[in-house]
C-alpha cells in the first residue's frame, strides 16, 4: 500500500506541479510515521529528565512517564555536592578537548596528504590506515604497548591510541579530493608554500567538514569510557562516563551471582537519572548548533553529478 502510494507520488512529483491527492496522502502517512519515530526516540530522554526531578518512591512505583512526579531538586543538590562526580566530569572535558584537538590535527594532515593523487606510495598509506579497520592487535598487546610507553594514567593513553578514526579519515580525504585542484595550482603560482596552501586556502574552504569531524570526534570521546577504564588506575582520573557506568550497571547487577549479599544496596534511581542528564546535557546542547554543518559536511565528500 505504502509503496504503491510512493510510486504514485513519485509520478505525481515528476509530471504535475500541483500536488495530487495521492501525494498529499503520502506526505500525511510519511509525517505520521516520522512523528512516531521522533516520539519513540525522544521518549527515553524525556523520561530520564522527568525521573531526574522525581521522588525515589514515585520512580520505584513506576509512576513517572513524561512529567515529574513528587517534584524535588534534592537529588540534583546531592549530585552537585559529589566532588568525585565533578572531578570526573572535569576529566571528561579535558580528555575530550585534548583528544579532539590532537585527532583533528592528525586526521586533517593525513587526509590532506592522501588526497593528493600524485603522491608516491599513496596506496600503501591508505592501505596502512584501512588495514587497522579490519585487523587489530588485540586488547592485551595494546595494553602492553600503552603501558610500556609510559602513557598509563595520563591523558595521552586516551588521546593517542584513538587519534585517527579511519572512517573520519576517509570522509575527509574524499572531501579534500573534491576540492578543485585549480585553486591550489593558482595559489602555488601566487607563491604559497604547501603548508600555506593547506592553512590559507584548503582549510578555510573546509569549514563544513571540519565542523562535522570535530563533532564526530568530540561526541565519541565524550561518550567513550573503555580506554579510560583500561588505562587509568585511580578513581580521580576516570571520566564521568566510567562513573556513570559504575553507578548504573555496577549497582544493579542483582545478587552478583548469588554471593556477597551484604554489599547489595542500590544506588537510587533518581541519582542515576540525574547523573545521566548531567552527562548527556552538553552534547545535547551543542548538537543543534553544529547540526547544520553536519548534513552538508558528510555529503560534501560524496560524489556529485
Amino acid at each position, binding site marked *: 500500500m505504502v509503496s504503491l502510494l510512493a510510486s504514485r507520488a513519485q509520478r505525481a512529483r515528476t509530471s504535475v506541479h500541483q500536488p495530487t491527492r495521492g501525494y498529499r496522502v503520502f506526505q500525511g502517512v510519511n509525517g505520521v510515521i516520522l512523528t512516531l519515530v521522533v516520539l519513540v526516540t525522544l521518549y527515553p530522554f524525556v523520561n530520564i529528565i522527568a525521573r531526574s526531578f522525581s521522588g525515589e518512591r514515585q520512580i520505584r512505583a513506576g509512576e513517572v512517564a513524561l512529567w515529574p512526579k513528587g517534584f524535588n531538586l534534592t537529588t540534583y543538590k546531592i549530585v552537585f555536592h559529589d566532588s*568525585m562526580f565533578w572531578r570526573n566530569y572535569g576529566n571528561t572535558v579535558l580528555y575530550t578537548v585534548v583528544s579532539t584537538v590532537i585527532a583533528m590535527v592528525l586526521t586533517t594532515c593525513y587526509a590532506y596528504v592522501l588526497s593528493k593523487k600524485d603522491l608516491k606510495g599513496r596506496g600503501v598509506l591508505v592501505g596502512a590506515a584501512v588495514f587497522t579497520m579490519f585487523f587489530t592487535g588485540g586488547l592485551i598487546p595494546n595494553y602492553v604497548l600503552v603501558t610500556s610507553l609510559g602513557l598509563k594514567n595520563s591523558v595521552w593513553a586516551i588521546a593517542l591510541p584513538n587519534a585517527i578514526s579511519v572512517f573520519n579519515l576517509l570522509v575527509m580525504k574524499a572531501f579534500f579530493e573534491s576540492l578543485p585542484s585549480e585553486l591550489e595550482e593558482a595559489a602555488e603560482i601566487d607563491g604559497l608554500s604547501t603548508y600555506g596552501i593547506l592553512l590559507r586556502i584548503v582549510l578555510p574552504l573546509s569549514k563544513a567538514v571540519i565542523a562535522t569531524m570535530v563533532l564526530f570526534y568530540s561526541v565519541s570521546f565524550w561518550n567513550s569510557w573503555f580506554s579510560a577504564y583500561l588505562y587509568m588506575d585511580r578513581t580521580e582520573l576516570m571520566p564521568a562516563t566510567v562513573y556513570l557506568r559504575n553507578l548504573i550497571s555496577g549497582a544493579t547487577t542483582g545478587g552478583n551471582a548469588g554471593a556477597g549479599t551484604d554489599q547489595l*544496596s542500590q544506588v537510587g534511581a533518581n541519582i542515576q537519572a540525574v547523573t545521566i542528564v548531567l552527562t548527556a546535557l552538553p552534547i545535547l546542547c551543542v548538537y543543534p548548533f553544529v547540526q547544520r554543518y553536519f548534513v552538508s559536511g558528510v555529503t560534501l565528500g560524496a560524489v556529485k553529478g
Partner: protein
Amino acid sequence: MKNTGQLSRRQMLSAAGFIGLAALTGCGGGEDGGDAKDLSKKQNGAMKEYRVGQQFKASESLSFSILHNNNPIYPMKDGWLFWQEVTKRTGITLKPVAVPLSDYEKKRSVLIGAGDAPFLIPKTYHPSEVAFVSSGAILPVSDYVHLMPNFLDKVRKWKLEPELDSIRQSDGKYYLLPGLHEKVKSGYSLSFRTDVLEQLGLNLPTTWDQVYDVFKAIKAEHPDKYPFSDRWSTNTPFPAAALLSYLGQAHGVKAGWTYDNLSFDTKAGEFVFTGATDAYRQVVEYLRRLVAEKLMDPESFTQTDDEAVQKLLGEKSFAISANPQELVQNYRYNLGKQVKGAKIEMVPVPLGPAGPVVMGGARLENGVMISTKALKSDTFVAMMQFVDWLWYSDEGQRFAKWGVQGTTYTYSGGRYKLEPGISLMGSNPGAPKDLQKDYGFFNGVFTYGGSWALVSSSFSTDERRFQDAMAQREQLPIDPAHPLQSVEQEQASLWDTPLRDHVTQNTLKFVLGKRPLSDWGDYVTELKAKNMDRLVGLHNTARERFKKENG
C-alpha cells in the same frame, strides 16, 4: 552513553588466549628468584615468629599493590581511615589500583594477561581463578599457606578441608585464598505480604506445599492478579536465579545461581548430570504448576528487578524473592511509604522433599589470588603474613568490618555498636558520616566470612531471625574433589556451556508450558546428544584419579 567500547566475546577470547602466551614469556624469566620453595631470601620485613592471636607488624615499612573493586555505593577515597590504620598497625602501605565494580573481571583478565597485575587480587569468585591457572600467572597459594597460621587455624577449627579440596586443581593445589565461614550463611528466600495473609486467615508457610496453598488462597481472593511475581532474572545467566536456587536446595539439587552441570550422587557414589536428575525435574514440575495455575507471573523469568518490585509495590503481586537487605531497605521501606498497613516478612526457606538442609560448599567465599610476581619479591613472606592477618585473623577481620574501637564502634556485651554520628547501610539515618563511604570499613574487598559471632554481629533483627532458623539445618555433604587437567578442562568447557544453555532454555520452556513435561525423556536424549554422558564420564574419571593421587 552507548557502551561503544564494550568487550566483545571475541576480544575476551583473544585476551584469554593471550594470557597463556604472556605467561609463557613471563615465566621464562620467572625462575630468576632461585628455588621457589626456598623462602630464606624473601624474608624482608617479615616477622620471625608469627602466630595466631599475634598482631602482624612488618619489621620495616613496606608497600604492596592491590586490585581494588570500586563499589559505587562507597567509592574509594585515599583519605579513608582504613588505609591509614592498616599502615599504622602493620607497617604496610596498600597501593590500590581502583577498578570500577561494573567491569572488574574484565580488567582483572587484562592486567593478569599483560603481566601487569598487582600482587594482591582480591574479590575473586571461584571458579574464575581456574582460567589463569595454566598460564602460571597466579600463585598456587596452597604451597605457601604454612606462612599463614590464622588461615590454617580456621580451616582446622571449622573443618573446612573438604571445602578446600573442592577448589583444588588437577595438580592438587589451590590458587585462591577463599573467604572462610564458620557457618553457612543463607542469603535468599521467599517474602510474603503478611497483612494480606492475615486478612485471609493464613499462616506463613513452612513447606513448599503450604506455599502452593497460600498462593491458591490469595488467587481465590484476587483472581485478576498473580500472587507471586519474581525477580533476579536479568543480569544473571539463569532466570529467576534466586528462586530456583532455594527451591532447588529444598529438593537437594543445585539450580539457579548455584546450578552446576555436575552433582555428586552420594548413593550411587558417582557424578551425575544435574539437569537430568529426578530432583531437578521435581523443581521444574513445581514451578510449572505455579505458572499453569496462574499463581506465578510468567514474566517472573524475564522481567527486570525493578519491574518485579514495582508489581509488589503496586499490589499487583503479594510475594517475591528476598534477601534480608532487600526486604528491609527496599520492600518494607517502600511499601511503608506507599501502601497503608502493608507488612512484609521473609520466611526461612520452605522445606521440600530433601528435608531441613542447606547446600554444602557455601562456607567458602570469594577470595584473594596472588600474582606469581609476588613470589620473586624479597618481601614475599611478609606479604603472606600480612594477608593472613588482615583477611584471616580475628583481629584483622574485626578491624576490616567495624573499624577502630572507640573511633568508629564500641563493643560491649558481645554487641558491636557504631559510634554516634556514624551510619551503616541506612542504619542511622541523618548521621553525618558513613562507615563505608567515609571511613572505608565494611568494604566488600576486605570484609567477608569469619566466625559466626562476627558475621552475625551486623545482622538486623529480621536477618538474625532468618539466619538463626537456617543455621539449625543440616549441611548437605559437598561434592568430592574432581579437578580436571588442562586438556580435559578445555574439552569440558566446550561441552559444558551448550549443555548448561540447553538446561536453562528448557527449564524455561517446561515451566512456561511451551513444552509439555511428557517431553522430559526427549529432553534427556537431547542432552545426551550434547555429550552429557561424556562430560559426566570425564569428571568421574577425574575424581577417581584425584582420589588415587591424593588419597
